[in-house]
């Protein structure tokens, strides 16, 4: 079973040289730490920055320089600042190659729910609805099951939707899956996890064809 770091490491392997990538809050933020050295990847922060760098050293933090999670950050050479309209403009026009975000539920047709739980205080969708509606490639980092052991990979999302038919790939503590027209296609098992365990943890349509390799993470 993967921990959060493991999920982030596995997702980092999906990033290709030359990609512009938008990382959501939570596990997706961790992905930045595992992008292979020497690979040219530019991180977009939807509050108006291309070329996000790591957190600043203590004392170097700048109130004017934050990411979409409101954390103090730095820039890397080649960065640029722009306003929110242009930021979502480049998201809508599919200039961002890859969007990685968290989810509460994903359905086997690629619908995603990650912004609202009925009965709980709603904080808002922020930029998530824009991102999922426009991104050309969306990878979701999520837990396969909730604390009660119930599957979050469903035939149909039960929570209010953030976007429809948009998720392309899912990385959980148990597995890597593609979202296809026929449902979730199992690609890899987490270390020590059996196909049977993944089957039991998946309520949506699950396609298992041939041997499912265990994932390789350094």
């Amino acid at each position, binding site marked *: 079973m993967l921990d959060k770091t493991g999920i982030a490491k596995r997702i980092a392997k999906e990033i290709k040289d030359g990609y512009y990538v938008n990382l959501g809050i939570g596990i997706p933020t961790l992905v930045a730490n595992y992008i292979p050295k020497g690979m040219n990847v530019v991180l977009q922060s939807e509050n*108006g920055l291309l070329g996000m760098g790591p957190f600043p050293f203590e004392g170097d933090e700048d109130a004017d320089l934050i990411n979409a999670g409101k954390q103090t950050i730095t820039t890397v050479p080649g960065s640029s600042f722009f306003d929110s309209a242009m930021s979502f403009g480049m998201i*809508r026009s599919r200039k961002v190659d890859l969007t990685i975000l968290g989810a509460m539920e994903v359905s086997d047709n690629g619908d995603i729910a990650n912004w609202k739980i009925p009965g709980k205080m709603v904080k808002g*969708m922020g930029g998530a609805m824009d991102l999922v*509606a426009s991104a050309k490639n969306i990878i979701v980092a999520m837990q396969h099951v909730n604390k009660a052991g119930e599957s979050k990979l469903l035939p149909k999302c039960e929570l209010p939707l953030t976007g429809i038919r948009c998720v392309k790939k899912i990385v959980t503590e148990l597995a890597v899956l593609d979202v296809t027209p026929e449902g979730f296609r199992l690609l890899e098992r987490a270390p020590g996890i059996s196909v049977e365990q993944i089957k039991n943890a998946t309520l949506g349509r699950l396609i298992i064809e041939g041997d499912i390799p265990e994932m390789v993470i350094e």
Partner: protein
Amino acid sequence: MNKTVKNADEAIKDIQDNATIMLGGFGLCGIPENSITALVKKGVKGLTCISNNAGVDDFGIGLMLQTRQVKKMISSYVGENAEFERQLLSGELEVELIPQGTLATRCMAAGYGMPAIYTPAGVGTEIEIGKEKRKFIVDGEEKEFLMEMAFDADFAIVKAWKGDNHGNLIFRETARNFNPMMAMAGKITIAEVEELVPAGTLDPDHIHTPGIYVHRIFQGSNYEKRIEQKTVRAKG
């Protein structure tokens, strides 16, 4: 073309009860601190505030929530704010949550004189309720979009880094965020700046918001520029 006013009190003096105002900023970054303080002091009530966030309990728009000056918030994310939550649950505060890109683009539409725009954000979700949906072919594929209307705000209040007496504005780093679009969108636009310089000082190629969009400008003071989430890494 001198648009300079003395201070925030003078800049906001004609904002009346029940006005609709846009406030720039993302989180606590790039917010018009001086103007918010002046609005609290003036005690104007029943405001509809268009702003990406609602501040925190004791800073930003949160200060206007404490004094119950806000009737309605139009935001994309209202975050961690206990007083906000209390007022929302008690029905004192009305909240309209809209996608962040939709918020930005509805401001831009107003500034660019476009009555409505189309965005795919929210298609298939509860956001589409009551909105016109329309299909367009994009890159050879049919895709659905929602028609979203340009905002109509009485005032826009923005914060810039530098400005001149013509109202030209330059923003700094990610403190730019919603400020340029809101500056364009307000019927009356008020800009507060950290440094106010005479016209001709700023490089015309570096100006983010041309002065034509700005009606009043003043040099603010005592900027706290509070950091919402200080994240650092260890040295070496």
